[in-house]
């Protein structure tokens, strides 16, 4: 894999981990009624982060099997890398670059609003929620699926497209999984 392929893969993984952390936070937020809940927020974010990485294992496994399998096949049968691993990296790189083009502006706006939320007084904090974080949360599924669909389209490869869409589903599944495992009403009604 080339340096740019590693960079794109790492950036997508970091964005997925961040989104997972925020999904875990959203799942836990407002559940306890406590005023001081920073520790609970950190635990929830860590759970979300772990969950998304776990849900992405099949996707990462599929990508590695495809690329490394191609490299092994190319090395063993064709005696080189041209039709093997390097050739299989290209559609992933195209898909990843397009996905980043969709996700990075969204992530930049959300992170800027979160910085504002952390630093501003409560009135302007509400403003950050009402103007950016609220609508951002509402359109998040659309952005996630649009990025994956655009990546799949750009890849011109059925397997790469399928893995991109599977990754989107994994990212969107984090909050329901966190609700079910830790924070949903049925979990909370059980005695501690």
């Amino acid at each position, binding site marked *: 894999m080339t340096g740019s392929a590693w960079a794109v893969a790492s950036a997508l993984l970091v964005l997925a981990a961040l989104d997972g952390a925020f999904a875990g936070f959203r799942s836990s*937020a*407002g559940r*306890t*009624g*406590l*005023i*001081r809940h920073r520790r609970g927020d950190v635990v929830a974010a860590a759970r979300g982060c772990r969950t998304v990485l776990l849900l992405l294992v099949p996707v990462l496994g599929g990508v590695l099997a495809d690329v490394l399998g191609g490299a092994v096949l190319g090395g063993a049968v064709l005696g080189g890398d041209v039709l093997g691993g390097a050739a299989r990296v290209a559609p992933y790189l195209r898909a990843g670059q397009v996905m980043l083009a969709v996700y990075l502006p969204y992530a930049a706006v959300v992170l800027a609003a979160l910085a504002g939320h952390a630093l501003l007084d409560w*009135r*302007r904090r*509400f*403003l950050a*929620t*009402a*103007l950016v*974080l*609220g*609508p951002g*949360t*509402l359109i998040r599924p659309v952005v996630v699926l649009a990025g994956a669909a655009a990546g799949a389209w750009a890849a011109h490869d059925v397997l790469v497209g399928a893995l991109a869409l599977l990754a989107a589903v994994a990212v969107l599944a984090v909050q329901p999984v966190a*609700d079910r495992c830790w924070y949903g*009403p049925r979990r909370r009604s059980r005695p501690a």
Partner: protein
Amino acid sequence: MELVGVDLNATLIAQATRLAGVERLRCRFVTGDAFEPGVAVEDGARTIVISTGLLHHLPAAQLPEFFAAQRRLGVHAFAHWDFDAGPWATLGAWVFHRARTREAVSRHDGVLSARRAHPAAALLRAARLGADGYRIACVDGPRWLPRLTHVVRPITGTRA
């Protein structure tokens, strides 16, 4: 200074008491009618009554009595925060509750609360009627201009 929280719902009071214990907060909670003498207000002249998001639960016809009860207790002052009603508050409430709440009842009630909030003029009228002898103040922003940093505003009264 002593902080006392009052609600008619014993379950909510029990939960508030438990959470205050967990966080070691210096306050107490009692079940009952806050305006019943002796429930929460022991010395009216040294009491300030505050609430947030309560007024829109009262019909307009009951507002004068709400303020009159505080006058009868002789509280030093009151300040009740509620939505500055208008289309922008309704839209903001919808976005806020869609983004920050998960339960259907919360999403429904949050928007309804913004829609049924009383305008400042109605609150002022009721407060002047019920709490004679208090200096009353409440100001709404322009209805059609978004004032996103003033989503809620208080109606205040201090003994003249």
